[in-house]
């Protein structure tokens, strides 16, 4: 277990900026998630921390020691690659034993630890196989075993679930979460999937186009994204963004959108009049069913035109006076043809962003 501090890391490839002034700290024994869309710089950052890439500027500090210029073999950091990077000409056993052999441990000790970790990950029956004889899920577990067999100071995971198919990913996520909780090691986990971040991590770092936009406990970052890109990255399905105008009418703030005018209580008086981007998560929009109060406050008419069911939930798309809205309904709901409905918007969940700086202005 160790603390990791990333200090003002910058990296360019050719002329392209991959990382720009990224700083954060991973606490000892914590599970931290590096969340960002593809090509945000996650992999480069992990490679710099592991030492197979060197930063143009900045330092990597591990337990008070500056390791920026130490070769990867002396860093004692484990990294699980997205592509698993299993050595194709070595059997599973030798793949897992590789870091132990590097340390020249006694062979009895190597055998014991490989057996332990492979039983823990339920791959002990595969030790005599070659990587090409394994399924995707098995390869992933071998790659994780090769990391966990070590006494590394910190374990880096680069999208280990991305190369698995959908069903396997769900199972692997649960398994990984259970495993990490029981291990009590320091983990930094890179992923583009907000669900990974919400499900597993103590801390989340949002990386976007090479910049660290926000960090903190996942619930906090999820509820109060500082930047519109954080809201976009950290939401599934993608958060709804609506052009809105704020007007002050008789000392009350009113938010004008193409499909609804929302009266705000007084505490938003800090906001000035003008254009904003209104953000509302798909699960904070609710379909109002027949029989319920049609004159319900903060509801508006919309035309549902597409639904699809995922498991026991539904993603729906609606058209509200020309604006497309995504809804995430916690139940199964199917339509065969477009349907006019009322949609209730949970005003307490509304976020307002500045149109220019893209920073959060409300709440």
């Amino acid at each position, binding site marked *: 277990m160790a603390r990791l501090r990333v200090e003002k890391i910058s990296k360019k490839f050719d002329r392209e900026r991959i990382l720009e002034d990224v700083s954060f700290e991973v606490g000892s024994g914590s599970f931290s998630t590096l969340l960002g869309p593809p090509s945000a710089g996650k992999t480069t950052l992990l*490679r710099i921390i*592991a*030492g*197979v890439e060197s930063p143009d500027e900045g330092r990597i500090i591990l337990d008070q020691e500056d390791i920026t210029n130490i*070769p*990867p*073999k002396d*860093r*004692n*950091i*484990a*990294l699980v*690659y997205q*592509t698993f*990077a299993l*050595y*194709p*000409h070595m059997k599973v056993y030798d793949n897992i034993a*590789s*870091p132990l052999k*590097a*340390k020249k441990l006694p062979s009895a000790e190597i055998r014991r630890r490989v057996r332990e970790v492979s039983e823990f990950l339920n791959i002990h029956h595969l030790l005599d196989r070659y990587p090409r004889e394994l399924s995707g899920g098995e390869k992933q577990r071998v790659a994780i075993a*090769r990391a966990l067999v*070590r006494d590394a100071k910190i374990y880096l995971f680069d999208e280990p679930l991305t190369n698995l198919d959908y069903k396997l990913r769900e199972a692997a996520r649960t398994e990984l979460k259970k495993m990490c909780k029981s291990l009590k090691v320091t983990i930094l986990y890179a992923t583009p999937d907000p669900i990974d971040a919400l499900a597993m991590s103590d801390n989340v770092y949002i990386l976007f186009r090479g910049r660290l936009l926000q960090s903190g406990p996942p619930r906090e970052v999820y509820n109060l994204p500082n930047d519109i890109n954080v809201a976009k990255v950290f939401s599934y399905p993608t958060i709804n963004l609506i052009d809105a105008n704020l007007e002050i009418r008789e000392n009350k703030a009113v938010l004008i959108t193409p499909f609804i005018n929302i009266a705000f209580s007084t505490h938003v008086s800090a906001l000035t009049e003008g254009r904003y981007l209104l953000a509302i998560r798909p699960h904070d929009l609710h379909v109002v069913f027949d029989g319920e109060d049609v004159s319900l406050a903060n509801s508006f008419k919309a035309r549902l035109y597409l639904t699809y069911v995922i498991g026991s939930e539904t993603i729906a798309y609606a058209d509200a006076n020309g604006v497309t809205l995504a809804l995430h309904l916690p139940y199964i709901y199917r339509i065969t043809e477009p349907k006019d409905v009322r949609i209730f918007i949970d005003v307490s969940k509304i976020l307002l962003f500045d149109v220019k700086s893209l920073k959060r202005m409300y709440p």
Partner: protein
Amino acid sequence: MKANIWKVATLIAFVFLTLWTLLPIYYAFITAFKSRIEITYWPPTLIPTEFTSHYWIIVWFDRPTVAYYRNTIIAGVISTLVALAFSIPTAYTCARFSFRNRADVLFTILTFRFLPPAAVVLPIYIFLRQLALLDMPISLGLLYGAINIPIGVWVLRSYIREIPPELEESYMIDGYSRLRAFFNITLPLIRPGLVAVSLIILALSWGEFIFASILTTSPAGKTLPVGISEYMGGEWGYEWNKIMAVTFYAIIPVIIAFFIVRKHLARGLTFGIVR
């Protein structure tokens, strides 16, 4: 119907190619059994009227064929080792590291191979004479090795590029140096490429004529291709039956070598074509 026409056309093409390749070998083979009289027959006989094994035996004794063999093997093995020793690190560097003018460096290396041997053979002759290295199969081996480095670099570079760098990186993260990663990960994985390149260079050195004929002088210093040419136009005229017998002896080791490693080769030569 259309598919059938293609099938027939393919079959004819294969038959033609097979004959194109095998007929000269067949003709060489049977010519070595012909008598001195019969090799001059017109039209030539496709099956000897009289088989004699005399020339198959005599070629080992009327000239230093054993020495030719030894010299050819020495030159071939040394050239392969030299070419590999220089082209593996060069190929690795060009495949894994980016540096200024990398493409130019690679192309320049390739142009060395375009050089016609006749253009450089004389300076090399003088050079070797000054160093007292003439007439030695080792010098030929070093020379062939140097000439074939570009082939090694270009073929091996494409092999190394097929190996994901993540494998070496992962191995370094496991706790090994880059050098160990190279020897334990990259080298075993490009083995088909190493086999293919070795065989190509061995075959090229085996059959090389111009350098060998000018840089060797004594009968015991010559290689097989030069030795074969010794049967041409001497006091006995063109002794085609002996030429063919020695030629056959000369190509047998190459055929055996290709046969032994044919599996690697089939994969090696098509590697990277289909991904």
